[in-house]
């Protein structure tokens, strides 16, 4: 497949409100492959660009279950199977005493899953990304808001998409080279 020379068209906005309105209009106009960039999380923005479901909670749940099982089974195997030791006449599988470490391991695995699961789902670390080719994009981490329509979108057309984005009265428009 031939690689697209243009990654997408990017529009710059002044405020969170104009970005969220623009994202809504763009999505309603039938563009599917779009993304929005902001210097802080904006409530409801992900929904406006058609992103409703994220898998982070599932990853954390699985991580927590694995952690809890690991914690308990480790203690059970070490204390009751591999090297049973009689400690004050307590049963080898003294489950009440194993609860604390089981709990800590649940939290540990779930927390690690939350962080690394989120990073993996986001595709981070990613040292290079085409959006950074736009010099004004450096302001996306300060006080500007950006909306991009990817060239892979079925409705993408260089002139028409640009015209559509201009209709949203952005501050500036740039083509993103890939």
């Amino acid at each position, binding site marked *: 497949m031939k690689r697209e020379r243009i990654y997408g068209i990017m529009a710059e906005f002044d405020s969170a409100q104009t970005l969220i309105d623009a994202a809504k209009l763009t999505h309603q106009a039938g563009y599917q492959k779009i993304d929005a960039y902001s210097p802080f999380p904006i409530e409801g923005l992900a929904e406006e660009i058609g*992103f409703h479901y994220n898998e982070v909670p599932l990853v954390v749940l699985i991580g927590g279950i694995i952690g809890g099982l690991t914690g308990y089974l480790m203690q059970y195997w070490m204390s009751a199977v591999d090297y049973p030791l009689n400690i004050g006449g307590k049963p080898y599988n003294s489950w009440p005493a194993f609860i604390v470490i089981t709990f800590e391991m649940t939290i540990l695995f779930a*927390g690690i899953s939350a962080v690394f699961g989120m990073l993996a789902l986001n595709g981070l670390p990613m040292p290079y990304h085409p959006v950074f080719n736009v010099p004004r994009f450096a302001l996306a981490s300060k006080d500007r808001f950006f909306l991009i329509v990817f060239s892979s979108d079925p409705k993408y057309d260089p002139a028409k998409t640009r015209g559509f984005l201009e209709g949203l009265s952005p501050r500036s428009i740039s083509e993103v080279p890939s």
Partner: protein
Amino acid sequence: MTVDAERAPVIEPGYTFGTVTEKISAIVLTRPASNGWFLGFGIAFMLTMMMLYAIGFLFLKGIGIWGVTIPIGWGFAIVNFVWWIGIGHAGTLISAILLLLRQSWRNSINRFAEAMTLFAVSCAGIFPAIHVGRPWLAYWLFPIPNTMRVWPQFRSPLMWDVFAVSTYATISALFWFIGLVPDMATLRDRATHPAARLIYGALSMGWRGSARHWHRYETAYLLLAGLATPLVLSVHTVVSFDFAVGIVPGWHTTIFPPYFVAGAIYSGFAMVLMLAIPIRKIYSLEDFITERHLQNSAKVMLATGLIVAYGYGIEAFMGWYSGDRYDAFTLWNRLHGPYAIPYWSLLICNIFIPQVLWIRKLRTSPVALFLVSGVILVGMWLERFIIVVVSLHRDFLTSSWGMYYPTRWDWMTYIGTIGMFLAAIFLFVRLLPMISIFEMRTLLPESEVKE
């Protein structure tokens, strides 16, 4: 409501996304390090070296250089361990519990409170490792396969502690790091020096603020807060089990877990204030860390201080009500025994002096708060000294009574960890944004959107 109108704002008016960003990132990127910074860091660094010297000598000679003997086998090492771990708790409370409770004022102080947690836990972690007597075998605490084919004894609270503290350190570090990622992107885009761009760029991991990324990020952050909340409560609970599961009079009580957790938050907020008050002054951050933050922290100290006072009260009450002669003697011995002065000082520092925080004028005065916080930190250290040393020095049999006298090596190690903690704080304020920039942006009115 007149009360609300009088309340200081969380962030002073007049700031925009741009000015908040510039103000916080400029401290790291453009502000030159002052002579005062070099002096402070130099002293802290020398104290760290003193600690390393004391630990080096300990490794050479063994724990005989400390004041610990039988019956007081747990001396300064455990006192300091509990003190430092407790201080760390406020950072997690601010970053996780207040996030879940939607207390947005936390946004201005969570970053350095989390840093404080991390450094305090690092200081705490030193003590159990050097206290084991043969520190080169400290890894036996972990379930690592070894040639003897034995495993740790999981029925012991000391093992629970190993897991609780190492989980706590890991989760605190992850929480702190993940909160830094968007701000690293800000610094990457603001920095002019190529090395700074490279380092902050690598730490930002290519963060670009995509709506999809923010969505997953916020979910992960919230879940992490939800996980850290029971974790932080469990950590000091497990630390208290180290004592409460033992049968020594003065240790064997069920009030220990809640009162340890309250005491931890009490001392932690005192440390937060002792750091925040000079930092906001030196770096002119009064607009971001306002009177409101100081007042709220003072109120948390007042509340947790009263829980701690209740804990002391119950201990004293049970000493009388249980009818147990050893418990009764423990109480009498605290009040009139050889360590009566530390016990009375503890009551003055932790219960009586902090009551001045009921006075609004003192609660909003940075100088008064700084001094009261210092008193509380001393008081909380004395509390652990009373629990560890005073309980051990008089147990069931008169023949096993003794006294504990800390040596210069004990003091050098303890003061050295304070130096290490401060050195880390000094580096932190110069190298990383000490206030979370992206969370500050969400406090501005312009960040609100209607759909």
